[in-house]
């Protein structure tokens, strides 16, 4: 192979690699942006982060009962809650595969530590949370 051919092959590979990296970064940023809307704590912004079909499932710590709550009900609760408590909230991890993704979020208040696992889908070019589960541990 001539030097010119080698150079062209190298250039094409470099362009392809940078394109792949760009695409991955784009989706990573978009998934995180969606999760940040949820993490805002603002009912209207949170509503936009979720797909209409989303549900929230968890074990009720008081009764041990399995709960399956439509996301609209959860958003109504958030909007009705006007006393915002002090908390720290962070994205622990994000994993993306094509048009599907998973995210883990940690929330810490004075009384408890909560973790969310979210499933996300890229629907019509937009990432949305389609499933949420959480656990809560009192301090």
């Amino acid at each position, binding site marked *: 192979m001539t030097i010119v051919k080698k150079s062209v092959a190298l250039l094409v590979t470099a362009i392809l690699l940078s394109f792949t990296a760009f695409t991955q970064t784009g989706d990573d940023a978009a998934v995180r942006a969606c999760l940040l809307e949820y993490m805002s704590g603002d009912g209207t912004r949170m509503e936009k982060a979720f*797909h209409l*079909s989303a*549900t929230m*499932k*968890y*074990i009720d710590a008081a009764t*041990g009962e*399995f709960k*399956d709550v439509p996301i609209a009900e959860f958003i109504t609760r958030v909007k009705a809650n006007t006393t915002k408590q002090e908390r720290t909230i962070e994205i622990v*991890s994000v*994993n993306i*595969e*094509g*048009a*599907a*993704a*998973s995210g*883990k979020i940690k929330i810490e208040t004075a009384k408890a530590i909560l*973790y969310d*696992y979210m*499933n*996300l*889908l*890229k*629907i*019509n070019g937009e990432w949305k949370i*389609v*499933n949420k*589960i*959480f*656990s809560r*541990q009192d301090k």
Partner: protein
Amino acid sequence: MEMIKTTLALLLSLSLTNTAMSQQALPEEKKAAEATINLYFDGWATSDTAKVGKAMHATCHLKFYRDGQFTDMDRAAYLGRFKQPQERALGLITRIVLLDITVNIASAKTEIITAKDIFTDYFNLIKTGEGWFIVDKVSVRTPK
């Protein structure tokens, strides 16, 4: 240079210890959650809806976006897609890529690799009074 090497080695060992600790934190729970996922794999591979159904919680939905269309399928509809029981196909690969457990909930990334496609699933799992269940899943298909 020697100092950089030592620092790197220290950082590596710290990160390995950290990973090992988080993995060893709940060995029984990890085993139990893996057993649920393996039951799902086994049922999927042999079209045994009793096994797949046992691994999936009654409220479980499968959601995916493919060819411009969003699909939301409940457990009964998903189980209805399986055909007659069959032998596990030669060369079929089923594997857990990631499993992260936090108290009584977990997230898993899994792959089912057939002759034509790679099916990647993200499972949300919850431990109820009856054990670990896949309570929701999203899926993506990648042609080989």
